[in-house]
């Protein structure tokens, strides 16, 4: 009995100790943040490659390269956006192609046809070089994901468009319309699909969604009375066109002349 009592007393002490131990050390105490080190690690050719990753990527890369490098058409000369004051061979081609391919969708969906196409010079991102034309060429010329849209514009806004062109002094791609810049820097002899501009008429103008939303300060597009998104990427317009022709025609006709 005496022995057991002694033992109990000891056990009591032990329990108190354990309790204290848990309270002081194992209670949920947060960590203190003491030091932070930050640096930027450049990823260069000095870094080894990971064979497992390389092997995983390879079939994807091979498929893309095979597809991008497949030959779609032939281009007889370099089409460059930097040669031409008011129009360029590549700009003419792009605007022509947008009407041709866009009309396939627009006529089927809306039973209407596109009157003219107006794009931005800055949107042409590469030259169309002489030789074989591939899908990669289309990606280089049109890397953006812009859609072809048709805006219904009144004749008055077409006039604003000509003022914009004259003010900008850039060979913006244009098709379906011709005009002359008079000595007083206004547009005259404006012809759309060969007919004189009627300021009260509504014209269907093809462009890309970036410009239609006011990009490059093309504010006249915001005054459109109707908008049709053709859900057709400009790059795909180009790819489909390349597939449909054997040799790219070189359109050197003059659309904007100076008096």
């Amino acid at each position: 009995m005496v022995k057991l009592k002694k033992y109990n007393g000891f056990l009591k002490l032990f329990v108190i100790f354990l309790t204290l131990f848990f309270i002081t050390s194992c209670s949920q105490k947060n960590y203190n943040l003491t030091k932070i080190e930050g640096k930027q690690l450049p990823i260069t050719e000095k870094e080894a490659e990971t064979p497992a990753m390389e092997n995983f990527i390879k079939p994807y890369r091979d498929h893309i390269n095979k597809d991008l490098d497949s030959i779609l058409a032939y281009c007889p000369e370099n089409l460059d956006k930097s040669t031409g004051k008011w129009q360029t061979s590549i700009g003419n081609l792009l605007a022509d192609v947008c009407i041709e391919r866009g009309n396939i969708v627009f006529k089927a969906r809306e039973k209407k046809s596109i009157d003219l196409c107006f794009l931005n010079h800055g949107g042409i991102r590469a030259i169309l070089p002489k030789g074989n034309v591939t899908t990669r060429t289309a990606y280089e010329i049109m890397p953006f994901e812009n859609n072809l849209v048709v805006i219904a514009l009144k004749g008055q806004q077409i006039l604003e468009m000509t003022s914009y062109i004259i003010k900008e002094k850039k060979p913006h791609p244009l098709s379906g319309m011709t005009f002359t810049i008079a000595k007083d820097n206004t547009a005259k002899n404006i012809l759309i699909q060969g007919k004189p501009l009627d300021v009260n008429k509504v014209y269907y103008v093809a462009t890309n969604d970036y410009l239609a939303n006011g990009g490059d300060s093309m504010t006249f597009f915001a005054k459109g009375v109707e908008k049709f998104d053709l859900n057709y990427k400009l790059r795909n317009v180009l790819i489909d066109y390349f597939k449909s022709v054997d040799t790219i025609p070189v359109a050197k006709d003059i659309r904007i002349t100076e008096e």
Partner: protein
Amino acid sequence: MKRREFIEKTAASTALLSLGLSLSSFETNDIKHLTILHTNDVHSHIDPFPADDPRNPNKGGVSRRAALIETIRQENPNVLLLDAGDIFQGTPYFNYYGGELEFKLMSMMKYDASTIGNHDFDNGLDGLYAQMPHASFEFICSNYDFKNTVMNGLVKPYKIFNKNGIKVGVFGLGIELAGLVDKQNYKETVYNDPVEIAQDMTQLLKKEEKCDLVICLSHIGYKYKDDASKICDLKLAELTQDIDLIIGGHTHTFLDKPTVVKNKAGQDVLVNQVGCYGINLGRIDFYFDKDKAHSNQGRSIVV
């Protein structure tokens, strides 16, 4: 009798002694080291830039990034690997495969989480949804409400990672979609104010969940020179408290080193971003201990 008592006492005191010893060792040697690795705006750049690239020759490449990450994991297995959005769009890999390869490679590198960038909507909500099975990491965004979209339930407002005893709370912030992303692509996704959401998130993660570290994965942009009123990472850091680190994206900002900003409570917040296209990997190392003497002490920041 005496002998038995002696043995009992000895055994008990040995136990006490060993407990005491383990207690002291528990307190002094418990230093935790957490390594945060991060990328932003990789934009489908899987292959390195070619040697003749005018701007970034021979830079980047997923396979090299994977090797670097693996080397760091060998040094310190306690790694949290994060991305601040805009995984998609920029090379034909995205045009051809819609982001499948990007997600698969990030999963192979064991990314823990990413937030959602504006370009991640480029193939619409359906396009993003279609790639979700290829991602083994979390998507975290607190201020986009996807409730009425196909993405409902697939993006978490926050996540708490337990990294070797360190509680790391991560929340995410996305940029305003109207005017930046086509409505057709984001549909009924609701954008909520980043500052208000950040305040809710820090209250939850720091005060209620008692996280040791709170990280904001942001795609709102580092700073806007031309629009000082627009919310950005630097302003977010100043206007809030209890965020330890903001990992940013969107503005493709290259910083020589992380920026240190004083928050609303006068504490230091780190804001970092590593440019774009997988050219750099950000690395932030955090060291923690349980020494009570350090609890009220300022943290040293070496950048």
